[in-house]
């Protein structure tokens, strides 16, 4: 069943089995997990960083930008906004491909952390 609400659960490690309607947030590992809001049961991982997803907690949770599960059979697409699932329009196959390419370009251009950027530069210089 489609979820309409999602509540935060602050954890160190994600539990083996996630509960629907919960967003598990790990500050230690800077990442979050939830079961796809469409009800398909797939686990959705959203690493948290300025170049990935940004989590806001004000008693409710907001995750920005939207979550595009194109790689899942359901291809669901939604925003988590103040504890509410806001369903976004389904993308066409062409739009999915374009979105994937631009997201990966952004990720490659704006690394998640200084370490990642430095790591890439070092590897480029040393050829490892």
């Amino acid at each position: 069943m489609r979820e309409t609400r999602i509540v935060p659960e602050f954890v160190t490690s994600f539990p083996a089995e996630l509960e629907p309607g919960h967003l598990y947030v790990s500050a230690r590992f800077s990442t979050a997990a939830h079961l796809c809001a469409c009800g398909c049961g797939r686990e959705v991982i959203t690493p948290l960083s300025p170049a990935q997803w940004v989590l806001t907690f004000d008693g409710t949770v907001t995750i920005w930008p939207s979550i595009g599960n194109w790689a899942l059979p359901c291809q669901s697409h939604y925003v988590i906004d103040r504890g509410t699932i806001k369903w976004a329009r389904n993308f066409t196959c062409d739009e999915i491909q374009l979105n994937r390419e631009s997201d990966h370009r952004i990720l490659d251009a704006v690394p998640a952390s200084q370490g990642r950027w430095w790591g890439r530069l070092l590897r480029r210089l040393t050829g490892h």
Partner: protein
Amino acid sequence: MSPGNNPGHGEHTVTIFVNTREFQWDKKEISYEEVYNLAFPNEPLNDGDVARIEYSRGHNGGGAGSLQPGGTVKVKENMVFDVYVTVRS
């Protein structure tokens, strides 16, 4: 844990974290496909799938980087992996 008890392998087991979950790994290196399978054991990686794998607190390249399909990386105690298929839109 007694690393010395495994002379056949000559390497001790290290703890790694994949999507926050702890695993013991007894090989020197781990491949893209192996990390993916630890993260999503029930969801086989199909052709054309686009899982992103990023690591930090490792050995190579300042300890952080990304793994590509077919690639491997040397593991290190408490190394961290993010594995995800979701795209920001």
